């Protein structure tokens, strides 16, 4: 193995000090398991991050609020990318953890906000509880050697059962402390995110909330890139690619799947908690079959095996959905269906990988040049 630094694509356009700098800073996040490892990519990344930061200043409050909502759902899509795209566990019921996270946040926050005024613990609980639930469901499945489409049907059944159960909670007997679950109509008046403790409180109004979720997304994106390009990421991919082979290297497949599933559950829970706080509301249909299909569609359209695919898939389709609904035509839903079909037929690996390879062709880099073994540099 040569010591020579592999050539990063695109660096011929840049001064070498910039290339080296970007290379060094982003080395832990680079690797063949993610799209975009070149200095040019990272410059584009920084530019996009800047645009995202400047966005509230140049747009309307509605757009800020709405975009926050889109970003909140991205975490659900990312959870699916991790467990399905990278680990090969096809969950059709990530919304179970999303809904559980949302309701947990609602219940804890409504009670807590009267005491401390803040919702820190609620957010924590809304991540931990779904993760624990994911461990239970995952243990049940993976230690029973359930796999493939059977995982899809079990997870779907779990989310549908939760939808039914939460839909049944109308009435004062279903009140936990100060929080009324509200049945099918949903739980209302869920507090917005607020950090700190009385009297030092920061409540996240629309614009700060926007910055919070966008910041969280950037952090989450980098963290996921780090993970999937790390040793652990390779184990996940190895499980996806060939379970029998990976097991014969001494890896406990069941445990690895369980871990990934739990992390995915935590991320979906986070997504649900952010949703409930942003929306001040959550109701059982977020665990229904229509919502359950959403992340699968987003991730498939964007590109299952890339993090950017989940982000752009979720963002793009939510935006499209919203604009089509606003158009008010009865053909909106039909148009959405046609778009889905078109993407599946013409971009079998998803839109983002297709665009990425087109860009790569344009700037003339070959995929063989990207770095492979940089983890020991980190």
């Amino acid at each position, binding site marked *: *193995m040569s010591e020579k630094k*592999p050539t990063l694509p695109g660096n011929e356009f840049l001064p070498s000090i910039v290339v080296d700098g970007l290379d060094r800073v982003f080395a832990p996040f680079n690797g*063949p398991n993610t799209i975009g490892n070149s200095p040019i990519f990272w410059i584009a990344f920084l530019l996009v991050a800047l645009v995202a930061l400047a966005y509230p200043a140049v747009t309307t409050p509605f757009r800020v609020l709405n975009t926050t909502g889109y970003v909140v759902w991205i975490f659900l899509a990312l959870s699916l990318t991790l467990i399905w795209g990278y680990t090969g566990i096809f969950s059709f019921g990530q919304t179970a953890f999303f809904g559980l996270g949302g309701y947990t946040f609602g219940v804890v926050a409504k009670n807590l906000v009267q005491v401390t005024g803040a919702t820190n613990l609620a957010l924590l609980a809304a991540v931990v509880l779904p993760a624990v639930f994911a461990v239970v469901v995952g243990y049940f499945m993976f230690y029973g050697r359930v796999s493939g489409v059977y995982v899809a049907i079990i997870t779907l059944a779990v989310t549908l059962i939760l939808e039914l159960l939460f839909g049944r909670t109308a009435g004062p007997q279903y009140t936990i402390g100060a929080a009324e679950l509200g049945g099918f109509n949903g739980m209302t008046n869920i507090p917005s995110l607020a950090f700190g403790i009385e009297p030092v409180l920061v409540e996240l109004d629309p614009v700060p909330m926007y910055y919070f979720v966008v910041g969280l997304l950037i952090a989450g994106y980098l963290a996921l890139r780090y993970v999937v390009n790390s*040793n652990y990421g*390779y*184990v996940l*991919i*190895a499980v996806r*690619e*060939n379970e*029998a*082979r*990976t*097991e*014969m*290297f*001494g*890896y*406990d*497949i069941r445990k690895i799947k369980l871990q990934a599933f739990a992390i995915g559950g935590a991320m979906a829970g986070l997504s649900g908690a952010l949703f409930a706080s942003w929306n001040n509301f959550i109701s059982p249909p977020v665990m229904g079959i229509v919502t359950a299909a959403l992340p699968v569609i987003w991730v498939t359209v964007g590109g299952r095996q890339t993090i950017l695919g989940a982000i752009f898939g979720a963002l793009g389709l939510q935006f499209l959905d919203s604009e089509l609904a606003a158009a008010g035509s009865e053909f909106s839903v039909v148009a959405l269906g046609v778009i889905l079909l078109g993407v599946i037929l013409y971009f079998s690996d998803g839109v983002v990988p297709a665009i990425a390879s087109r860009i790569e062709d344009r700037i003339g880099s070959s995929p*063989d040049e990207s770095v*492979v*073994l940089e*983890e*020991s540099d980190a």
Partner: protein
Amino acid sequence: MSSGTRGDGTPILETDGLQKTFGGLTAVDRVDYRLPRGDIQCLIGPNGAGKSTFFGLLTGKLRPTGGTIRYNGEDITGLMPHERVRRGISLKFQTLNIYEELRVSENLRVPCQRRDEDTRTLIEEVADLVDLTGKLDQPVDTLSYGEQQWLEIGMSIAVDPELLLLDEPTAGMTVEETERTGELIQTLVETRDMTALVVEHDIDFVRQIAEQVTVLHNGEVFRQGTIEDVAEDPEVKRIYLGEEYGGD
């Protein structure tokens, strides 16, 4: 070339009355087998003799119907495959079982990172052993079939096993590749204090590497001995060539 056993002769692997039935078919029939530490031994036999089932039982992929497997004196009959690997058993699958979507170095990385040492150094070391140093950055589908087989052997030894099980390591290789594979296995056993059990059809290859040969037939141990002894045995010839021909 090595001859005789290098270890102290204590068995690294023992099976007692090992048995596996599928429905009515007995694929492995009360096999008692001892593999001395440090040996290279071969398992041969015509198609359907039970070799793959026997390997499946050793790795834990299959659960035996009866009997026990002991490894370094410990009963491992009930252990999961990954637990056996962690005790030092490694398998090279019969059919190619590499990660087809990944590059050579990434394929090696998955087993190498299980060990405490620096992963990159290990990858380079293993790549060097299996002659893939210059191809680390290539996608695996650009390798020749023989190179892919070597990669798989490399991956199997990357977890630093004491006992290496090789299921038809030379299938699909050219004559030259086969010969180099034999040398590789011998080098590994000699330099890394390993024991190897090989299922193989290619008799030239068996001649090249094996000290002891076990012939399986209809799930039972049919003959054991040196390759010369076994090759001369008319009964062995008979089961290979077909009953009447051998009997003529």
